[in-house]
């Protein structure tokens, strides 16, 4: 009986995973083939699949390669108003300035999020980060986003720090080390401030060799530790002028 049942099940084949689950599997492996498959999923008719694919491409794959693989599908997904900020940030890694980048700011109410907590921000903010990466001349408009940013903007800029190449913007990020507004933690229990998140973002961005551990993330950091990060970043940026 068991043999019969087993052969019946074999004949039926294993249940096919849902597309969503398949995209998540690609994300968990994130090898060359999987990242190509994720780029292909950007053109999926389902918004949910496009969203998943864009998130995975941004967080799990090589961003330059993801932008190259994504190509027109990435632009198309962005034009259809994807909620994943990473999709727009990936445009900043394109070999040539994508045409879709300029139309983002004109879309009223277009908002995006970036994983890790913090509310939605205008898609135009993500487009300014991408534009500044593509052309240093565009960094001036991004610099103005560091002037009295809202909580969500500040959190976004810290999370998008790996995508920011403009030295002046990088230096402006140091202001967040003294921003003591309440911010989300890594987990639902426990609060911290933007300054704590800034410590971890800057340490990761510049691969700082700090005298204290920043992993696992979610800690609170002292004034002395924040000062240490500031000094390290300053000396690094000034050395590489």
């Amino acid at each position, binding site marked *: 009986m068991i043999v019969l049942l087993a052969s019946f099940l074999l004949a039926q084949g294993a249940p096919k995973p849902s597309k969503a689950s398949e995209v*998540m599997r690609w994300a968990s492996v994130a090898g060359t083939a999987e990242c190509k498959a994720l780029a292909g999923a950007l053109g999926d008719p389902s918004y949910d699949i496009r969203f998943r694919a864009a998130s995975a491409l941004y967080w799990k794959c090589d961003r330059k390669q993801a932008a190259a693989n994504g190509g027109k599908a990435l632009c198309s997904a962005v034009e259809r108003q994807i909620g994943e900020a990473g999709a727009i940030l990936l445009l900043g890694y394109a070999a040539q300035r994508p045409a879709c980048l300029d139309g983002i700011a004109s879309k009223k109410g277009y908002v995006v999020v970036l994983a890790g907590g913090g509310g939605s921000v205008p898609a135009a903010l993500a487009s300014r980060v991408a534009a500044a990466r593509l052309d240093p001349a565009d960094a001036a408009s991004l610099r103005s986003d560091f002037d009295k940013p809202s909580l969500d903007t500040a959190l976004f800029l810290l999370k998008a720090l790996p995508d920011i190449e403009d030295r002046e913007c990088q230096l402006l990020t140091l202001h967040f080390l003294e921003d003591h507004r309440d911010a*989300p933690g890594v987990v639902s229990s426990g609060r911290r401030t933007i300054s704590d998140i800034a410590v971890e973002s800057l340490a990761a961005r510049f691969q700082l060799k700090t005298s204290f551990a920043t992993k696992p993330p979610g800690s609170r950091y002292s004034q002395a530790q924040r000062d240490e990060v500031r000094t390290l970043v300053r000396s690094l940026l000034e050395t590489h002028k």
Partner: protein
Amino acid sequence: MEFKRVFRVQGMDSNTNPKFQMVPSNSGKRYVALRDGAGATVISVVPAICTIVEIRENQLPADDRATGAQAGDRYFCITGTTKGVGLIMVTRTGLLLPLFLEVGVKDKREQLVMFHFVSDNARHRTRRPPAVIGQWLPDINYIWKRQANVVFVRHGSQNLPVAQNLQATITHPEGQLGTTGTLLGTLGDQTVNINVFFIWVLQNTNGTDTDALTTIGTANSGGPGICMFEDDAGSGQMLSFAHELGHHMGLDHPGHRQIDLMWDFSGQRGLNLTKADVNTANP
């Protein structure tokens, strides 16, 4: 003259200016009432995003009516077409400024959830019955789908025996998952959006009780989030679980009122999602 909700839990935020209404895309419908709107003209400013038609009260579908309907209220059906932000504009002769209703037309987002019923090799195990998933998910989706067009899908459930002693009380440092949370995360299904681990007792290392602990904003990180949920998680546990899923979607406590799902305290919170919540969970 003002817009009022017709049904409960249908994604209207009346605390914003203009008021906000979530409408699902692809012909999804939501209903609003216009109070003191006799003689007014009501149009959709961007018909490519949503359309609006006036209906009679007896054409409203059977649903959970909000209280406070008044004679003379006009009823409208808003249909979502494509994802984007639409605007309903109300004008009337003599009215200096038009009245607006912001409409967020949202495509459906799904979140795959894997449920784990944890035990360890020292005979600690969750007492929670697997049937709880079937009891909770319809209510979870009542809250999340109707207000934000976010759907939580049960990917599967399983007993998860851990081959080590996780201790009678599982602890986590303030603001962190802790070693057990991190370990459980590695044992979870990597092809879902969030792994939920039902455990026996959870406590902060500072001695305070923790009902549940969830990673914040992991919904679109390309990998699964983690939620640990203890057996004695206080009253209103379905709502607490819906609240934890909110953390996974990127929501946080500050700025919320007691009627909101993201209110801090278990057993007190409501099930309302604000416009900001909706736009963060389903941007």
